[in-house]
Protein backbone atom coordinates (compact mmCIF):
# COMPACT_ATOMS: atom_id res chain seq x y z
CA UNK A 1 0.00 0.00 0.00
CA UNK A 2 1.17 3.47 -0.80
CA UNK A 3 -0.88 5.15 1.90
CA UNK A 4 0.69 6.22 5.16
CA UNK A 5 -0.23 3.83 7.96
CA UNK A 6 -2.73 5.11 10.52
CA UNK A 7 -1.53 2.64 13.16
CA UNK A 8 2.06 1.56 13.66
CA UNK A 9 2.92 -1.06 16.26
CA UNK A 10 6.68 -1.27 16.65
CA UNK A 11 8.51 -3.98 18.59
CA UNK A 12 5.88 -4.08 21.31
CA UNK A 13 6.50 -6.31 24.31
CA UNK A 14 4.23 -6.60 27.33
CA UNK A 15 4.73 -8.44 30.57
CA UNK A 16 2.53 -9.23 33.54
CA UNK A 17 5.01 -9.33 36.40
CA UNK A 18 7.68 -11.58 34.93
CA UNK A 19 5.42 -13.38 32.47
CA UNK A 20 5.92 -12.38 28.85
CA UNK A 21 2.53 -11.86 27.24
CA UNK A 22 3.56 -10.09 24.04
CA UNK A 23 6.95 -10.15 22.40
CA UNK A 24 8.31 -8.43 19.32
CA UNK A 25 4.93 -7.46 17.88
CA UNK A 26 5.19 -5.38 14.71
CA UNK A 27 2.51 -4.42 12.23
CA UNK A 28 0.91 -1.50 10.45
CA UNK A 29 -2.71 -0.73 9.68
CA UNK A 30 -3.74 1.51 6.80
CA UNK A 31 -6.61 4.01 6.67
CA UNK A 32 -9.96 2.46 5.84
CA UNK A 33 -8.70 -1.06 6.37
CA UNK A 34 -10.59 -3.76 8.28
CA UNK A 35 -7.75 -5.34 10.18
CA UNK A 36 -8.22 -8.47 12.26
CA UNK A 37 -6.15 -9.64 15.22
CA UNK A 38 -6.76 -13.31 15.71
CA UNK A 39 -5.38 -16.29 17.57
CA UNK A 40 -6.38 -18.95 20.05
CA UNK A 41 -7.62 -17.98 23.52
CA UNK A 42 -4.90 -16.61 25.77
CA UNK A 43 -2.53 -15.67 22.94
CA UNK A 44 -2.46 -11.97 23.93
CA UNK A 45 -5.10 -10.41 21.66
CA UNK A 46 -6.90 -8.42 24.34
CA UNK A 47 -3.60 -7.41 25.93
CA UNK A 48 -2.51 -6.02 22.57
CA UNK A 49 -5.81 -4.13 22.27
CA UNK A 50 -5.37 -2.69 25.77
CA UNK A 51 -1.85 -1.58 24.79
CA UNK A 52 -3.18 0.08 21.67
CA UNK A 53 -5.86 2.07 23.48
CA UNK A 54 -3.53 3.04 26.29
CA UNK A 55 -5.24 1.07 29.04
CA UNK A 56 -2.16 -1.05 29.64
CA UNK A 57 1.45 0.06 29.57
CA UNK A 58 3.81 -1.74 27.24
CA UNK A 59 7.08 -3.12 28.57
CA UNK A 60 8.90 -1.85 25.50
CA UNK A 61 8.22 -0.70 21.95
CA UNK A 62 5.99 1.98 20.55
CA UNK A 63 2.42 2.32 19.29
CA UNK A 64 1.58 5.23 17.02
CA UNK A 65 -2.04 6.11 16.36
CA UNK A 66 -2.56 8.61 13.55
CA UNK A 67 0.91 10.05 14.00
CA UNK A 68 0.87 10.24 17.82
CA UNK A 69 2.57 7.80 20.15
CA UNK A 70 0.13 6.59 22.79
CA UNK A 71 2.99 4.94 24.67
CA UNK A 72 4.88 8.16 25.34
CA UNK A 73 1.88 10.49 25.55
CA UNK A 74 1.19 12.43 28.73
CA UNK A 75 -2.37 12.57 30.08
CA UNK A 76 -3.41 15.58 28.00
CA UNK A 77 -1.95 14.09 24.83
CA UNK A 78 -3.48 10.70 25.62
CA UNK A 79 -6.94 12.29 25.82
CA UNK A 80 -6.27 14.06 22.52
CA UNK A 81 -5.29 10.76 20.87
CA UNK A 82 -8.30 8.95 22.33
CA UNK A 83 -10.61 11.47 20.67
CA UNK A 84 -9.60 9.87 17.36
CA UNK A 85 -10.44 6.42 18.63
CA UNK A 86 -13.60 4.51 19.50
CA UNK A 87 -13.74 1.21 21.32
CA UNK A 88 -16.38 -1.49 21.42
CA UNK A 89 -15.91 -3.76 24.40
CA UNK A 90 -16.85 -7.41 24.39
CA UNK A 91 -20.02 -6.96 26.44
CA UNK A 92 -20.88 -3.58 24.96
CA UNK A 93 -20.18 -1.79 28.28
CA UNK A 94 -23.28 0.37 27.98
CA UNK A 95 -24.32 2.31 31.06
CA UNK A 96 -27.35 0.54 32.46
CA UNK A 97 -28.88 3.66 33.98
CA UNK A 98 -28.92 5.51 30.64
CA UNK A 99 -31.17 4.88 27.63
CA UNK A 100 -29.62 3.86 24.29
CA UNK A 101 -29.84 7.46 23.10
CA UNK A 102 -28.31 8.82 26.31
CA UNK A 103 -25.48 6.31 26.02
CA UNK A 104 -24.65 7.60 22.55
CA UNK A 105 -25.05 11.20 23.69
CA UNK A 106 -22.72 10.72 26.65
CA UNK A 107 -19.32 11.33 24.97
CA UNK A 108 -20.81 14.26 23.04
CA UNK A 109 -22.18 15.84 26.21
CA UNK A 110 -19.03 15.26 28.21
CA UNK A 111 -16.39 16.12 25.67
CA UNK A 112 -17.91 18.76 23.41
CA UNK A 113 -19.62 22.09 23.84
CA UNK A 114 -22.33 21.31 21.31
CA UNK A 115 -25.87 22.45 22.19
CA UNK A 116 -28.28 19.79 23.39
CA UNK A 117 -30.30 19.87 20.13
CA UNK A 118 -27.20 19.17 18.08
CA UNK A 119 -26.14 16.38 20.40
CA UNK A 120 -29.57 14.76 20.16
CA UNK A 121 -29.51 15.02 16.36
CA UNK A 122 -26.01 13.52 16.10
CA UNK A 123 -26.87 10.69 18.50
CA UNK A 124 -30.05 9.92 16.53
CA UNK A 125 -28.03 9.77 13.31
CA UNK A 126 -25.51 7.40 14.85
CA UNK A 127 -28.29 5.15 16.10
CA UNK A 128 -29.84 5.25 12.63
CA UNK A 129 -26.54 4.10 11.12
CA UNK A 130 -26.76 0.96 13.20
CA UNK A 131 -30.50 0.58 12.60
CA UNK A 132 -31.65 1.44 16.10
CA UNK A 133 -33.27 4.84 15.74
CA UNK A 134 -36.62 3.36 16.74
CA UNK A 135 -35.24 2.07 20.00
CA UNK A 136 -33.55 5.21 21.23
CA UNK A 137 -35.55 5.45 24.45
CA UNK A 138 -35.10 1.83 25.44
CA UNK A 139 -32.80 0.95 28.32
CA UNK A 140 -29.89 -1.43 27.61
CA UNK A 141 -31.54 -4.17 29.68
CA UNK A 142 -34.64 -3.99 27.46
CA UNK A 143 -32.86 -4.82 24.20
CA UNK A 144 -31.03 -7.89 22.89
CA UNK A 145 -27.26 -8.49 23.08
CA UNK A 146 -26.90 -7.70 19.38
CA UNK A 147 -28.73 -4.40 19.80
CA UNK A 148 -26.55 -3.54 22.78
CA UNK A 149 -23.45 -4.09 20.67
CA UNK A 150 -24.86 -2.01 17.84
CA UNK A 151 -25.56 0.76 20.33
CA UNK A 152 -22.02 0.44 21.65
CA UNK A 153 -20.74 0.85 18.07
CA UNK A 154 -22.94 3.93 17.69
CA UNK A 155 -21.52 5.31 20.95
CA UNK A 156 -17.97 4.52 19.84
CA UNK A 157 -18.68 6.45 16.63
CA UNK A 158 -20.26 9.42 18.39
CA UNK A 159 -17.15 11.59 18.15
CA UNK A 160 -16.47 10.51 14.56
CA UNK A 161 -13.28 8.59 15.33
CA UNK A 162 -10.80 7.68 12.65
CA UNK A 163 -10.16 4.28 14.18
CA UNK A 164 -12.61 1.85 15.76
CA UNK A 165 -11.31 -0.97 17.93
CA UNK A 166 -13.75 -3.83 18.38
CA UNK A 167 -13.08 -6.51 20.96
CA UNK A 168 -14.74 -9.73 19.80
CA UNK A 169 -17.87 -8.07 18.39
CA UNK A 170 -19.56 -11.36 17.55
CA UNK A 171 -18.99 -12.97 20.96
CA UNK A 172 -22.25 -14.27 22.38
CA UNK A 173 -24.28 -13.46 19.27
CA UNK A 174 -26.20 -15.84 17.03
CA UNK A 175 -24.85 -16.23 13.46
CA UNK A 176 -27.46 -14.03 11.81
CA UNK A 177 -27.04 -11.19 14.33
CA UNK A 178 -23.30 -11.58 13.96
CA UNK A 179 -23.67 -11.31 10.17
CA UNK A 180 -25.81 -8.21 10.66
CA UNK A 181 -23.06 -6.64 12.74
CA UNK A 182 -20.49 -7.58 10.08
CA UNK A 183 -22.60 -5.83 7.47
CA UNK A 184 -22.69 -2.69 9.61
CA UNK A 185 -18.89 -2.80 9.89
CA UNK A 186 -18.51 -3.21 6.11
CA UNK A 187 -20.91 -0.32 5.46
CA UNK A 188 -19.18 1.99 7.92
CA UNK A 189 -15.79 1.14 6.52
CA UNK A 190 -16.95 1.83 2.96
CA UNK A 191 -19.09 4.89 3.54
CA UNK A 192 -17.17 6.68 6.28
CA UNK A 193 -13.68 5.30 5.65
CA UNK A 194 -13.28 4.33 9.30
CA UNK A 195 -10.33 2.05 10.04
CA UNK A 196 -11.40 -1.03 11.97
CA UNK A 197 -9.13 -3.09 14.20
CA UNK A 198 -11.08 -6.12 15.27
CA UNK A 199 -10.15 -8.77 17.78
CA UNK A 200 -11.88 -11.92 16.67
CA UNK A 201 -11.61 -15.65 16.38
CA UNK A 202 -14.96 -16.03 14.68
CA UNK A 203 -13.86 -17.49 11.34
CA UNK A 204 -17.05 -16.76 9.40
CA UNK A 205 -16.82 -13.14 10.47
CA UNK A 206 -13.10 -12.97 9.67
CA UNK A 207 -13.68 -14.27 6.12
CA UNK A 208 -16.61 -11.93 5.64
CA UNK A 209 -15.04 -8.65 6.74
CA UNK A 210 -11.31 -9.11 7.24
CA UNK A 211 -9.01 -7.54 4.68
CA UNK A 212 -5.83 -8.44 6.52
CA UNK A 213 -5.28 -10.65 9.54
CA UNK A 214 -2.46 -11.18 11.99
CA UNK A 215 -2.37 -14.45 13.88
CA UNK A 216 -0.91 -14.35 17.36
CA UNK A 217 0.52 -17.36 19.12
CA UNK A 218 2.05 -17.16 22.58
CA UNK A 219 2.38 -13.40 22.26
CA UNK A 220 4.09 -13.37 18.87
CA UNK A 221 2.78 -12.80 15.37
CA UNK A 222 3.28 -16.02 13.47
CA UNK A 223 1.25 -15.21 10.35
CA UNK A 224 0.00 -12.17 8.52
CA UNK A 225 -2.06 -11.72 5.38
CA UNK A 226 -5.54 -11.86 3.89
CA UNK A 227 -7.73 -14.52 5.53
CA UNK A 228 -7.99 -16.63 2.38
CA UNK A 229 -4.19 -16.77 2.15
CA UNK A 230 -3.85 -17.82 5.79
CA UNK A 231 -6.22 -20.68 5.06
CA UNK A 232 -3.41 -22.39 3.18
CA UNK A 233 -0.55 -21.05 5.31
CA UNK A 234 2.61 -23.12 5.57
CA UNK A 235 2.49 -23.05 9.36
CA UNK A 236 0.30 -26.05 10.23
CA UNK A 237 -1.12 -24.33 13.31
CA UNK A 238 -2.31 -21.36 11.29
CA UNK A 239 -3.58 -23.56 8.52
CA UNK A 240 -5.54 -25.71 10.95
CA UNK A 241 -6.97 -22.69 12.78
CA UNK A 242 -8.24 -21.07 9.60
CA UNK A 243 -9.74 -24.36 8.42
CA UNK A 244 -11.49 -24.94 11.75
CA UNK A 245 -9.50 -28.04 12.59
CA UNK A 246 -8.20 -28.96 16.06
CA UNK A 247 -4.74 -27.51 16.64
Amino acid sequence: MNKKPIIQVENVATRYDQKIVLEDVNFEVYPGEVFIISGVSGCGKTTLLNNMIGLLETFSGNIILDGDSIVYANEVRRLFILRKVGVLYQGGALFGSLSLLENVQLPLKELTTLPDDAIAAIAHNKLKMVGLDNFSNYMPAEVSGGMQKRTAIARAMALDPKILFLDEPSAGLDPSTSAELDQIIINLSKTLGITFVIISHDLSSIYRIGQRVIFLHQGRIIAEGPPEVLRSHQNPMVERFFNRKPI
Partner: protein
Amino acid sequence: MSFQIEQQDANTLNIIFSGRLDMDSVAKLWQPCLSAIKQKPPRKLLIDAENVDYCDGAGIALLQALQMQQMTGKNSCTINGLKQDFKNLLIEKEQQQIKVEAKSSPKHRLLENLGRIGYGVAQDLRNNIVFLGILADQLCFVCLRPSKIRWIDFWKAMEDVGPRAFPIVALIGFLIGLISTFQAAPSFGQFGAQILMVNLVGLGLVREMGPLLTAVLLAGRTSSAFAAEIGTMKINQEINALNTMGINPIRFLVIPRILATMIITPFLEVFLIIFGLLGCFAVMSSLGYSWDAFIHQLNQAIKLQDYIGGLIKVFVFGWVIAGVGCLNGLKTTFDAQAVGRSTTKAVVSSLIMLVILDGIFAIVYYILGI
Protein backbone atom coordinates in the same frame (compact mmCIF):
# COMPACT_ATOMS: atom_id res chain seq x y z
CA MET B 1 -23.62 -54.96 38.43
CA SER B 2 -21.49 -57.56 40.15
CA PHE B 3 -17.84 -57.89 40.90
CA GLN B 4 -15.68 -60.67 42.12
CA ILE B 5 -12.19 -60.78 43.54
CA GLU B 6 -10.16 -63.92 42.98
CA GLN B 7 -6.63 -64.70 44.10
CA GLN B 8 -5.27 -66.49 41.02
CA ASP B 9 -1.87 -67.25 42.54
CA ALA B 10 0.49 -65.75 45.07
CA ASN B 11 1.33 -62.79 42.84
CA THR B 12 -1.82 -62.31 40.80
CA LEU B 13 -5.18 -60.89 41.76
CA ASN B 14 -8.21 -60.97 39.47
CA ILE B 15 -11.02 -58.47 39.66
CA ILE B 16 -13.93 -59.45 37.50
CA PHE B 17 -16.58 -56.88 36.65
CA SER B 18 -19.85 -57.59 34.91
CA GLY B 19 -22.98 -55.63 34.04
CA ARG B 20 -23.09 -51.84 34.29
CA LEU B 21 -20.19 -49.78 35.62
CA ASP B 22 -22.09 -46.57 36.19
CA MET B 23 -22.28 -43.94 38.89
CA ASP B 24 -24.68 -45.90 41.06
CA SER B 25 -22.72 -49.15 40.99
CA VAL B 26 -19.31 -47.48 41.24
CA ALA B 27 -20.43 -45.72 44.41
CA LYS B 28 -20.80 -49.15 46.00
CA LEU B 29 -17.75 -50.76 44.36
CA TRP B 30 -15.16 -48.03 44.86
CA GLN B 31 -14.23 -48.69 48.45
CA PRO B 32 -14.16 -52.52 48.39
CA CYS B 33 -12.19 -52.64 45.12
CA LEU B 34 -9.53 -50.18 46.19
CA SER B 35 -9.19 -51.50 49.71
CA ALA B 36 -8.74 -55.02 48.31
CA ILE B 37 -5.55 -54.02 46.52
CA LYS B 38 -4.51 -51.45 49.11
CA GLN B 39 -4.33 -53.93 51.96
CA LYS B 40 -2.22 -56.44 50.10
CA PRO B 41 -1.02 -55.02 46.79
CA PRO B 42 -0.61 -57.87 44.28
CA ARG B 43 2.37 -57.89 41.93
CA LYS B 44 -0.05 -58.35 39.03
CA LEU B 45 -3.60 -57.07 38.88
CA LEU B 46 -5.82 -58.44 36.15
CA ILE B 47 -9.09 -56.64 35.60
CA ASP B 48 -11.58 -58.63 33.61
CA ALA B 49 -14.11 -56.31 32.01
CA GLU B 50 -15.36 -58.60 29.28
CA ASN B 51 -18.87 -58.73 30.66
CA VAL B 52 -19.17 -55.00 31.28
CA ASP B 53 -22.18 -53.81 29.25
CA TYR B 54 -21.97 -50.15 30.08
CA CYS B 55 -19.25 -47.97 31.47
CA ASP B 56 -19.57 -44.23 32.13
CA GLY B 57 -17.15 -41.65 33.51
CA ALA B 58 -17.44 -43.09 36.99
CA GLY B 59 -16.57 -46.59 35.73
CA ILE B 60 -13.55 -45.24 33.86
CA ALA B 61 -12.50 -43.38 36.99
CA LEU B 62 -12.65 -46.60 38.98
CA LEU B 63 -10.52 -48.47 36.43
CA GLN B 64 -8.03 -45.62 36.41
CA ALA B 65 -7.93 -45.47 40.20
CA LEU B 66 -7.10 -49.18 40.28
CA GLN B 67 -4.39 -48.64 37.66
CA MET B 68 -2.93 -45.71 39.57
CA GLN B 69 -3.00 -47.60 42.83
CA GLN B 70 -1.03 -50.41 41.24
CA MET B 71 1.45 -48.07 39.55
CA THR B 72 2.35 -46.31 42.78
CA GLY B 73 3.58 -49.65 44.12
CA LYS B 74 5.47 -50.35 40.86
CA ASN B 75 3.21 -53.32 40.21
CA SER B 76 1.41 -54.08 37.00
CA CYS B 77 -2.21 -53.73 36.04
CA THR B 78 -3.89 -55.13 32.94
CA ILE B 79 -7.44 -54.49 31.83
CA ASN B 80 -8.82 -57.24 29.65
CA GLY B 81 -11.88 -57.46 27.52
CA LEU B 82 -13.07 -53.87 27.86
CA LYS B 83 -15.18 -52.98 24.84
CA GLN B 84 -13.55 -50.66 22.33
CA ASP B 85 -15.99 -47.78 22.97
CA PHE B 86 -15.17 -47.76 26.66
CA LYS B 87 -11.47 -48.29 25.98
CA ASN B 88 -11.44 -45.08 23.98
CA LEU B 89 -12.65 -43.23 27.03
CA LEU B 90 -9.94 -44.84 29.09
CA ILE B 91 -7.25 -43.84 26.63
CA GLU B 92 -8.53 -40.30 26.52
CA LYS B 93 -8.50 -40.18 30.26
CA GLU B 94 -4.96 -41.54 30.29
CA GLN B 95 -3.88 -38.83 27.92
CA GLN B 96 -5.35 -36.31 30.28
CA GLN B 97 -3.01 -37.48 32.98
CA ILE B 98 -0.51 -34.86 32.09
CA LYS B 99 1.91 -34.25 34.86
CA VAL B 100 0.75 -31.08 36.49
CA GLU B 101 3.66 -29.51 38.16
CA ALA B 102 2.57 -28.40 41.54
CA LYS B 103 2.93 -24.67 41.81
CA SER B 104 5.77 -24.52 44.22
CA SER B 105 5.19 -21.80 46.70
CA PRO B 106 8.57 -20.48 47.67
CA LYS B 107 9.27 -20.75 51.34
CA HIS B 108 9.76 -17.20 52.39
CA ARG B 109 11.67 -16.36 55.44
CA LEU B 110 10.04 -14.40 58.21
CA LEU B 111 11.94 -11.21 57.39
CA GLU B 112 11.04 -11.53 53.71
CA ASN B 113 7.38 -12.04 54.60
CA LEU B 114 7.41 -9.00 56.85
CA GLY B 115 8.98 -7.03 54.02
CA ARG B 116 6.25 -8.15 51.63
CA ILE B 117 3.50 -7.22 54.10
CA GLY B 118 5.13 -3.84 54.73
CA TYR B 119 5.46 -3.26 50.99
CA GLY B 120 1.78 -4.15 50.50
CA VAL B 121 0.69 -1.75 53.25
CA ALA B 122 2.90 1.01 51.83
CA GLN B 123 1.45 0.39 48.36
CA ASP B 124 -2.11 0.62 49.73
CA LEU B 125 -1.24 3.80 51.58
CA ARG B 126 0.34 5.28 48.47
CA ASN B 127 -2.73 4.38 46.38
CA ASN B 128 -5.04 5.94 48.97
CA ILE B 129 -2.99 9.14 49.07
CA VAL B 130 -2.88 9.29 45.28
CA PHE B 131 -6.65 8.75 45.21
CA LEU B 132 -7.20 11.52 47.76
CA GLY B 133 -5.02 13.80 45.65
CA ILE B 134 -6.97 13.02 42.48
CA LEU B 135 -10.20 13.47 44.43
CA ALA B 136 -9.14 16.88 45.76
CA ASP B 137 -8.08 17.91 42.25
CA GLN B 138 -11.40 16.84 40.77
CA LEU B 139 -13.39 18.46 43.58
CA CYS B 140 -11.62 21.76 42.88
CA PHE B 141 -12.27 21.26 39.17
CA VAL B 142 -16.02 20.74 39.60
CA CYS B 143 -16.29 23.56 42.16
CA LEU B 144 -14.97 25.90 39.48
CA ARG B 145 -17.11 24.30 36.76
CA PRO B 146 -20.32 23.02 38.38
CA SER B 147 -21.76 22.21 34.95
CA LYS B 148 -19.24 19.36 34.75
CA ILE B 149 -20.92 17.51 37.63
CA ARG B 150 -23.28 14.71 36.63
CA TRP B 151 -26.28 16.23 38.39
CA ILE B 152 -28.50 13.22 37.58
CA ASP B 153 -26.12 10.96 39.49
CA PHE B 154 -25.81 13.54 42.24
CA TRP B 155 -29.58 13.67 42.89
CA LYS B 156 -29.88 9.91 42.63
CA ALA B 157 -27.07 9.43 45.14
CA MET B 158 -28.62 12.10 47.35
CA GLU B 159 -31.92 10.21 47.35
CA ASP B 160 -30.23 6.87 48.05
CA VAL B 161 -28.06 8.18 50.85
CA GLY B 162 -30.63 10.49 52.45
CA PRO B 163 -34.37 9.84 52.31
CA ARG B 164 -33.98 6.09 51.84
CA ALA B 165 -31.77 5.86 54.93
CA PHE B 166 -34.12 8.04 56.98
CA PRO B 167 -36.33 5.28 58.47
CA ILE B 168 -33.38 3.24 59.78
CA VAL B 169 -31.61 6.37 61.06
CA ALA B 170 -34.77 7.50 62.87
CA LEU B 171 -35.39 4.07 64.37
CA ILE B 172 -31.81 3.61 65.60
CA GLY B 173 -31.75 7.17 66.98
CA PHE B 174 -35.01 6.73 68.87
CA LEU B 175 -33.97 3.37 70.32
CA ILE B 176 -30.53 4.59 71.35
CA GLY B 177 -32.01 7.63 73.12
CA LEU B 178 -34.64 5.51 74.80
CA ILE B 179 -32.33 2.69 75.89
CA SER B 180 -29.53 4.97 77.14
CA THR B 181 -31.95 6.95 79.26
CA PHE B 182 -33.63 3.82 80.53
CA GLN B 183 -30.28 2.22 81.48
CA ALA B 184 -29.08 5.36 83.24
CA ALA B 185 -32.31 5.96 85.17
CA PRO B 186 -31.67 3.68 88.19
CA SER B 187 -28.14 5.03 88.81
CA PHE B 188 -29.20 8.68 88.48
CA GLY B 189 -32.29 7.96 90.59
CA GLN B 190 -30.14 6.93 93.59
CA PHE B 191 -28.82 10.49 93.73
CA GLY B 192 -32.11 12.15 92.86
CA ALA B 193 -30.51 13.50 89.71
CA GLN B 194 -32.72 11.96 87.06
CA ILE B 195 -33.11 15.28 85.28
CA LEU B 196 -29.36 15.15 84.53
CA MET B 197 -29.98 12.17 82.28
CA VAL B 198 -31.04 14.74 79.69
CA ASN B 199 -27.53 16.21 79.88
CA LEU B 200 -25.94 12.78 79.51
CA VAL B 201 -28.02 11.59 76.58
CA GLY B 202 -28.25 15.00 74.92
CA LEU B 203 -24.54 15.73 75.03
CA GLY B 204 -23.67 12.15 74.13
CA LEU B 205 -25.92 12.26 71.10
CA VAL B 206 -24.86 15.67 69.85
CA ARG B 207 -21.12 15.34 70.36
CA GLU B 208 -20.38 11.67 69.87
CA MET B 209 -23.14 9.15 69.29
CA GLY B 210 -25.01 11.15 66.65
CA PRO B 211 -22.10 11.63 64.25
CA LEU B 212 -20.62 8.20 64.88
CA LEU B 213 -23.87 6.22 64.65
CA THR B 214 -24.94 8.06 61.50
CA ALA B 215 -21.53 7.34 59.99
CA VAL B 216 -21.59 3.66 61.00
CA LEU B 217 -25.05 3.24 59.47
CA LEU B 218 -23.89 4.92 56.27
CA ALA B 219 -20.73 2.80 56.19
CA GLY B 220 -22.90 -0.30 56.15
CA ARG B 221 -25.46 1.10 53.72
CA THR B 222 -23.78 3.61 51.46
CA SER B 223 -20.11 2.70 51.36
CA SER B 224 -20.89 -0.90 50.44
CA ALA B 225 -23.49 0.20 47.88
CA PHE B 226 -21.02 2.53 46.17
CA ALA B 227 -18.33 -0.15 46.13
CA ALA B 228 -20.72 -2.71 44.65
CA GLU B 229 -22.14 -0.31 42.08
CA ILE B 230 -18.79 0.95 40.82
CA GLY B 231 -17.22 -2.52 41.12
CA THR B 232 -19.91 -4.01 38.89
CA MET B 233 -19.40 -1.19 36.41
CA LYS B 234 -15.69 -2.01 36.36
CA ILE B 235 -16.36 -5.70 35.71
CA ASN B 236 -18.73 -4.73 32.88
CA GLN B 237 -15.85 -2.69 31.39
CA GLU B 238 -17.87 0.51 31.78
CA ILE B 239 -14.91 2.17 33.54
CA ASN B 240 -12.66 1.16 30.64
CA ALA B 241 -15.24 2.60 28.25
CA LEU B 242 -15.17 5.92 30.13
CA ASN B 243 -11.36 5.95 30.09
CA THR B 244 -11.15 5.33 26.38
CA MET B 245 -13.80 7.95 25.70
CA GLY B 246 -11.53 10.37 27.53
CA ILE B 247 -14.04 10.85 30.38
CA ASN B 248 -12.49 10.89 33.84
CA PRO B 249 -14.25 8.14 35.84
CA ILE B 250 -13.54 9.92 39.11
CA ARG B 251 -15.27 13.10 38.00
CA PHE B 252 -18.04 11.15 36.30
CA LEU B 253 -18.80 8.54 38.95
CA VAL B 254 -17.09 9.39 42.23
CA ILE B 255 -17.55 13.14 42.62
CA PRO B 256 -21.38 13.17 42.43
CA ARG B 257 -21.57 10.40 45.03
CA ILE B 258 -19.09 12.04 47.37
CA LEU B 259 -20.72 15.46 47.13
CA ALA B 260 -24.18 14.01 47.71
CA THR B 261 -23.01 12.04 50.75
CA MET B 262 -21.14 15.00 52.25
CA ILE B 263 -24.18 17.25 51.90
CA ILE B 264 -26.83 14.82 53.11
CA THR B 265 -24.97 13.22 56.05
CA PRO B 266 -25.26 16.22 58.43
CA PHE B 267 -29.05 16.26 57.80
CA LEU B 268 -29.26 12.59 58.69
CA GLU B 269 -27.28 13.24 61.83
CA VAL B 270 -29.72 15.99 62.85
CA PHE B 271 -32.61 13.58 62.35
CA LEU B 272 -30.84 10.91 64.39
CA ILE B 273 -30.31 13.40 67.24
CA ILE B 274 -33.94 14.59 67.14
CA PHE B 275 -35.26 11.04 67.30
CA GLY B 276 -32.70 10.14 69.97
CA LEU B 277 -33.92 13.04 72.10
CA LEU B 278 -37.52 11.96 71.53
CA GLY B 279 -36.54 8.52 72.82
CA CYS B 280 -34.95 10.17 75.83
CA PHE B 281 -38.09 12.25 76.42
CA ALA B 282 -40.26 9.12 76.24
CA VAL B 283 -38.47 7.76 79.32
CA MET B 284 -38.29 11.15 81.07
CA SER B 285 -42.04 11.72 80.63
CA SER B 286 -42.72 8.30 82.14
CA LEU B 287 -40.72 9.48 85.15
CA GLY B 288 -42.98 12.55 85.45
CA TYR B 289 -40.86 15.23 83.76
CA SER B 290 -42.67 17.68 81.52
CA TRP B 291 -41.73 18.70 77.97
CA ASP B 292 -40.83 22.20 79.24
CA ALA B 293 -38.48 20.85 81.90
CA PHE B 294 -36.89 18.57 79.33
CA ILE B 295 -36.29 21.39 76.83
CA HIS B 296 -35.07 23.74 79.56
CA GLN B 297 -32.54 21.17 80.77
CA LEU B 298 -31.46 20.45 77.20
CA ASN B 299 -30.87 24.14 76.51
CA GLN B 300 -28.70 24.41 79.59
CA ALA B 301 -26.71 21.28 78.76
CA ILE B 302 -25.93 21.74 75.09
CA LYS B 303 -24.18 24.74 73.61
CA LEU B 304 -24.07 25.79 69.97
CA GLN B 305 -20.43 24.71 69.65
CA ASP B 306 -21.45 21.15 70.56
CA TYR B 307 -23.85 21.07 67.65
CA ILE B 308 -21.33 22.59 65.25
CA GLY B 309 -18.56 20.23 66.42
CA GLY B 310 -20.81 17.24 65.72
CA LEU B 311 -21.85 18.57 62.32
CA ILE B 312 -18.24 19.16 61.22
CA LYS B 313 -17.39 15.66 62.34
CA VAL B 314 -20.20 14.02 60.42
CA PHE B 315 -19.44 16.11 57.31
CA VAL B 316 -15.89 14.69 57.27
CA PHE B 317 -17.19 11.20 58.06
CA GLY B 318 -19.50 11.43 55.04
CA TRP B 319 -16.55 12.32 52.81
CA VAL B 320 -14.52 9.37 54.10
CA ILE B 321 -17.38 6.85 53.83
CA ALA B 322 -18.19 7.79 50.24
CA GLY B 323 -14.52 8.06 49.27
CA VAL B 324 -13.58 4.66 50.70
CA GLY B 325 -16.60 3.02 49.08
CA CYS B 326 -15.85 4.49 45.65
CA LEU B 327 -12.12 3.74 45.92
CA ASN B 328 -12.80 0.09 46.72
CA GLY B 329 -15.24 -0.05 43.82
CA LEU B 330 -12.60 1.29 41.45
CA LYS B 331 -10.05 -1.19 42.80
CA THR B 332 -12.32 -4.16 42.06
CA THR B 333 -10.55 -6.92 40.19
CA PHE B 334 -12.11 -9.16 37.56
CA ASP B 335 -12.68 -12.43 39.41
CA ALA B 336 -15.99 -13.87 40.60
CA GLN B 337 -15.67 -12.82 44.24
CA ALA B 338 -14.28 -9.40 43.43
CA VAL B 339 -17.44 -7.32 44.04
CA GLY B 340 -18.17 -9.10 47.31
CA ARG B 341 -14.58 -8.53 48.43
CA SER B 342 -14.76 -4.86 47.50
CA THR B 343 -17.97 -4.27 49.45
CA THR B 344 -16.62 -6.03 52.54
CA LYS B 345 -13.38 -4.10 52.29
CA ALA B 346 -15.29 -0.85 51.86
CA VAL B 347 -17.30 -1.39 55.05
CA VAL B 348 -14.33 -2.58 57.11
CA SER B 349 -12.02 0.21 55.88
CA SER B 350 -14.75 2.81 56.46
CA LEU B 351 -15.27 1.66 60.04
CA ILE B 352 -11.54 1.65 60.78
CA MET B 353 -11.16 5.11 59.25
CA LEU B 354 -14.15 6.37 61.27
CA VAL B 355 -12.68 5.20 64.55
CA ILE B 356 -9.28 6.72 63.75
CA LEU B 357 -10.86 10.01 62.64
CA ASP B 358 -13.10 10.09 65.71
CA GLY B 359 -10.00 9.76 67.88
CA ILE B 360 -8.29 12.59 66.00
CA PHE B 361 -11.40 14.78 66.39
CA ALA B 362 -11.52 14.04 70.13
CA ILE B 363 -7.92 15.25 70.53
CA VAL B 364 -8.40 18.32 68.32
CA TYR B 365 -11.65 19.31 70.09
CA TYR B 366 -9.97 18.85 73.47
CA ILE B 367 -7.09 21.11 72.44
CA LEU B 368 -9.48 23.69 70.99
CA GLY B 369 -11.66 23.49 74.10
CA ILE B 370 -14.78 22.56 72.14
